[in-house]
C-alpha cells in the first residue's frame, strides 16, 4: 500500500472481504430497512390520537402475515443491533483480528434472542388461535 496511513482498520484482518464485507453489506441494508420502518412506525403509532382508528389499525397486526413480518423485523433489528455491538467493540480496539469469531458469536446471541421472540409468537401464527380475537 502507499505511504499515507489508512483510516480504517484493515490491518491485515480482512475486514473488507468475505465475512467482514457481507456483515457490512447486511448492516447497511438492515439500517436502511429500519429507517423506513421507523418512519412508518412513528406515523402509524401516533394514530393513537384518533381513538377508534387506532384499534382498527392495530387489528391488522393480529393477522398471521403481520406476525411473520414482525418476526422479520425482529430479525433485522437483532442483526443490526448485534453487528453494531461488534462495530463498537472494534472502535475500542477489541476483537479486530478476531472479527469473524466475534461476528459469529454476535450472530449466535441474535439467534437465541430471535428464538425467544419466535417462541412467544407461535400462538399468533395460526388464524383463529390466541391472537386472532384481538
Amino acid at each position, binding site marked *: 500500500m502507499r505511504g499515507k496511513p489508512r483510516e*480504517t*482498520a484493515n*490491518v491485515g484482518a480482512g*475486514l473488507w472481504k468475505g465475512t467482514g464485507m457481507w456483515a457490512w453489506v447486511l448492516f447497511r441494508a438492515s439500517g436502511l430497512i429500519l429507517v423506513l420502518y421507523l418512519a412508518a412506525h412513528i406515523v402509524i403509532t401516533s394514530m393513537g390520537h384518533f381513538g377508534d382508528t*387506532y384499534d382498527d389499525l392495530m387489528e391488522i397486526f393480529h393477522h398471521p402475515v403481520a406476525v411473520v413480518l414482525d418476526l422479520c423485523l425482529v430479525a433485522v433489528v437483532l442483526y443490526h443491533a448485534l453487528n453494531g455491538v461488534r462495530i463498537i467493540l472494534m472502535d475500542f480496539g477489541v476483537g479486530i483480528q478476531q472479527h469473524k469469531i466475534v461476528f459469529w458469536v454476535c450472530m449466535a446471541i441474535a439467534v437465541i434472542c430471535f428464538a425467544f421472540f419466535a417462541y*412467544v409468537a407461535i400462538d399468533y401464527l395460526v388464524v383463529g388461535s390466541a391472537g386472532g380475537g384481538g
Partner: protein
Amino acid sequence: MKAETVATHRGGMWAWLLQRITAILIIVCLAIHLVLTHIFNIGELDYDNVANRLAHAGVIAVDIILLASGIYHALNGLRMVLMDYWFSPRKRAVALSVVLWVIGLVAMGYGTWALWPWIS
C-alpha cells in the same frame, strides 16, 4: 495504534460519537420496549391497553429516549450511507445535513405531539 481505529470520521467526530451513544441507548430502550410490547403485553395492542401502559412515567421516558435517539441514529445512518454515494462533495453533504435535521426535528415534534397526552 492509530491505524486500528475502525470507523471513518468523515461524518464528523460528534456525529460519530453520538451515533455510538444513541446506539447503546437504543439497544437498552428497545429491549425494554420490545419486551413490554411483545412479551408482557402480547396481543394487547388496543388503544386502552397501550394508553394504560404509557401512563407509567418510566414507559413514557423510555419511549421518548427511543424516539429521540432512534430518529438521530436513523437519519445520521442514512446520511453516512448517502455520503458514500452522491453526497460526498462538501456542499451537497452540508445541504443533506440541513435537510435531514429538518426532517428529524419535524419527526421529533410529531412523535412528541403523539405522546403529549401522557407527557403532560
